[in-house]
Structures are given as C-alpha cells and as structure tokens.
C-alpha cells in the first residue's frame, strides 16, 4: 500500500521514529506488517503467535527508538528482528542464534522430506494432489531463501545475513530451490518453470 503521510522513504520514517514521531511509527508499521506477517507464518503455524511476535517487535522498537542506529535497510532490520524473536520464543532457554536446521521437525512449518529422496516426495506429492502447494514441497531453508528473494525482494547479501550463511551459499540455496521446483514441474500445471533454465 502506498502511504502518503509525508514519509516517502524508509530513511525519513526511521529518522522521524528516532525523534519520537508516532505517526511515522504507525506508518512504518502499516508499511511492513504484511511482509512481517507472512514471513513469520513460515515459522509459526499459529497466526496469533505471529501477531504476538510482531507486537513485541514494534513495542521494543518504540521503547528503544532513541538508541536506534541508522538502518541501511529498514525492511531487513525488521525481518531480522522478527526472525530472532520467533527463534527465541521457540527455544526460550537458549539465546544464541542457532541453525534452523537443528530445530525439532515439529516446530517447522512445512513437512520437509529429505532433499535426496525425490521419489518419496513425488509420491507424497501425487497423493496430496496439492498442486497449489508446491512451495510446501521445498525443504524449509530452500523455501525461506526462495521466498525472501522473490516475495520479500531481499538482496542475496541480505538473505545471507538473515540466514547467517555466506552470500554464495544463499545464491546456491535459491538455485537449489528452483531446481527442486523444476523437478516437480512435470507434474505441475505450473509449466512456466520449464522456462526458468
């Protein structure tokens, strides 16, 4: 949604918030709620849990507004903070950043099967007949990287920073995701993928 509250870009917004401007705060919230909500949903099935995390994020942001440093990308800052928050809420006893891959499977949003076992995956795929759910077929990290790149419009460097991996690795993740998708594309109505390579 385009916001015409006199804050055309994120940098102005950010500065206004640091100066205590509540309108700017609301504006920033409305500008990014959607992105944050859908990002959070990748980790938490429960919509209310996502809402709670976003609520905490913005309350903290406002509380600490005076000590905010200039953010190079506000969106990236918000998404990274949300990811950290959700991560912490999932493992309250551990505060350091750990690999998502180590999380118990039950906490992950999508049923991920091993990348290698394509046949099993294809079978599962046929059984569920969920032609619309091809993103759900991807392993979580591939899915996350793919969505960050093509839905949230993040740069590869930002994806790398979010996932705590190297930039080349983030490119590889997206590449792998596209490759995996293409494997399925024979079954998909989604013929467009044929053109991707």
């Amino acid at each position, binding site marked *: 949604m385009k916001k015409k509250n006199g804050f055309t870009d994120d940098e102005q917004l950010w500065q206004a918030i640091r100066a205590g401007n509540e309108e700017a705060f609301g504006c920033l919230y409305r500008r990014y709620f959607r992105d944050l*909500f859908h990002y959070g949903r990748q980790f938490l099935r429960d919509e209310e849990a996502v809402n709670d995390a976003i609520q905490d994020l*913005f309350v903290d942001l406002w509380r600490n507004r005076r000590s905010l440093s200039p953010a190079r990308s506000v969106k990236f800052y918000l998404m990274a903070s949300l990811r950290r928050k959700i991560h912490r809420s999932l493992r309250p006893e551990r505060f350091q950043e750990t690999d998502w891959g180590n999380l118990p499977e039950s906490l992950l949003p999508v049923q991920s099967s091993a990348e290698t076992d394509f046949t099993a995956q294809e079978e599962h795929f046929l059984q569920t007949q969920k032609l619309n759910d091809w993103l759900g077929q991807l392993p979580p990290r591939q899915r996350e990287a793919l969505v960050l790149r093509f839905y949230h419009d993040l740069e590869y460097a930002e994806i790398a920073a979010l996932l705590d991996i190297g930039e080349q690795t983030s490119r590889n993740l997206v590449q792998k995701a596209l490759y995996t998708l293409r494997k399925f594309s024979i079954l998909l109505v989604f013929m467009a993928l044929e053109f991707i390579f």
Partner: protein
Amino acid sequence: MEYQNFTTRDFIEDARFRRWVRQPDAETEAFWRSFLARHPEKKPEVIAATDFLLGIEQQVESDADAAAHQETVFQRIQEIITEEKNPSVRRQLPRWTVWVAAACLLFVLGYFILPLDRLGKQEITYETNRQQATFSLTEKVNDTEEPVSVSLTDGSRISLQPGSRISYAEAFGSDNKREVYLSGEAFFEVAKDPNKPFFVYANELVTKVLGTSFNVRAYQNDEDVTVEVRTGRVSVSVAEKIGGPQEVSPREREGILLLPNQQAVLARQEIRLVKTLVKELVLLSETILDQPKTSFVFETTPAPEVFKTLARAYGLDIIFDEDQFADCQFTADLTDVPPYEKLDIVCRSIEASYRILDAQIIIDGKGCKP
C-alpha cells in the same frame, strides 16, 4: 540493461521486473509494455517469470490474511505504548540515580501519605456505586460460563457476561429515571422512554441513554472502562463524585456523545475519556429496521461516492477531499469483505491511505488527476 537477451531466470532476478509484476505503477507499466511491444519474442519468458512471481505471492499469502490482523495488532501495540507514556521510565538508568531516587522518595513520602488516602477514595467501584442508592436493590449475578439474559420491568433487556453483576431498584422505573449499577460487562437493549432516561453506573463512568443498545465493560480491576454503541445515541460522562473541578476537565465532566459504531474508553488512572471507533464495525442495516440495505458492488464508481456509501452503511464520519478524489474510480464487489478491509481495499486501489483520528476516518492521498 539488455532485456532482450534476458532468460526467465534473469527476469525474476531483476528488481525492476519484480516491481512491475508485484506493484505495478505508471512508470513500470509503461516501460514493460513498450519493451514487449518492441520484443514480442520475449513474451514467453516474461509470462513465465510473471507466473512464477505471482505464484509465489499467491502461495505465501494463501493460507492467512494479513490485513485481517493488521489493525488489531496495531491497536494492541498502541495500548502498550500509551500506557508507557506515563512518566515511569523504562530505560536502564545509571546506578547513582537509584540513590538519588531513594533520597527523593524519603522526602516525598511525607507529602504522599495524605494524598494516597485521598486517591484511594477516588476510585469508584460497583460497591461504592451501590452504596449511593437510596432505595433497596435487586442484584443479579452471573456466575455461569454463559451470558445470562435479564429482563427489566420497563421492557429493557440486559445480556450479562460471565463473572459480571448488576443491581437495580426493586421498584425499577417508578422514579423519574432508570438506574442500573454494573460490575463487569453487559450488553444493554434499552426500551425507549424519553421521560425516564436510563443510567448505567460502571466504575467511574456514567452512561445515559433514552432508548438504544450498547455494551459496557467495567471490570473492577481493569484499567479502562469501555462503552460501545450499537444503535441510537449514548451520552457518556465521568461520575460526579470523581475529583474536584481542577482535576477533571470539562470534557470528561460534561461527557461525550456517542453514535453507532463509536465507543468511549475511560482511562481510569488519568480520568481521560477518549472517543474512537469500535473494533468490529456493524452494518447499520443489521440493527436499525428502517435503514435500507447497502449494495457494496461498485463499477467504475467515483471514489467520493464509494466513501459516502461506506460512511452511510456504517454510520462513519469519513473525511476526504472531494475534488482531489473526483477522478478516482473503483470497481469491485466488497459485499463479503470485513468493514475495515473494505476501506483498505478502496484506499489501496486509488493509492491512498486511511487513518482513524478520534472517531473519524481520514483519507490521505494525492488523487488520480492525470
């Protein structure tokens, strides 16, 4: 950039292309249309890339609707923030300030003991309200899990929420006014009787009506008292017993008038009364018999007319610059769309935004003049 040599993969990696697919504006639209006109052979790749990006968008957004949550979560955030605006400082302070604070406290304590006593008296609860009654009272208590319906002799009906209680005169309505004391939450449907105004005393808040329906939420330990209006007009003010003239501003004392879909929230600590819109807007046609049903099907309807339709349907005060939006047109069927989302969709389609100020909705945008 040599777009004519782009593969599908190149297109989806291109920020300018993604912007066109996801948030097209005049500039990107013109650019890519003219590109396709010059390079029709690129159409398959462009279509494939578009399908791919829109496919992802659709899947990410398919299982949950962000718009449905946006404003409720924001309201929660605002509540927390407003609460913290009270002087209590949350940030970490240097250690020495603790000693200074302790010293100050000793000084102040002497002064404080008296006012503390007075402050204690200032809180009005269900019990203090009941004590002011000069006649014998009937009490209804809902200790079940379900709302309980209470009928009064004047024909009014009260739906009493679990954990709530009301009291009223045994000879209800024999006086020239009808008075009810509430603790907790209840929905009131008051029978019309212009000669006998109906009063609800709920903590520090007094609600006065002639005949209408509204909800009052006043639990003793809540920080707020809320009155939401469904139909009719309701006047809400702060109880007379509260404070002296210097402590309660005239606005709070004289009260504010509420219309359908508006609510008043009393912050009990500061005795501050705020008028806003209810969280769940209700169509007037659902509650008022002679209100015609509104059609929310719009076809190249000028935006001002759309806003007026929404305003009429929900009894809203929508403020916008009629000239500015005269050239904006809107086409959609919003029949089954939740109220605030209706506004959101209309605003989004004409590149405007809305904000709620007090009980008014203000539309900001630059309009659609060519």
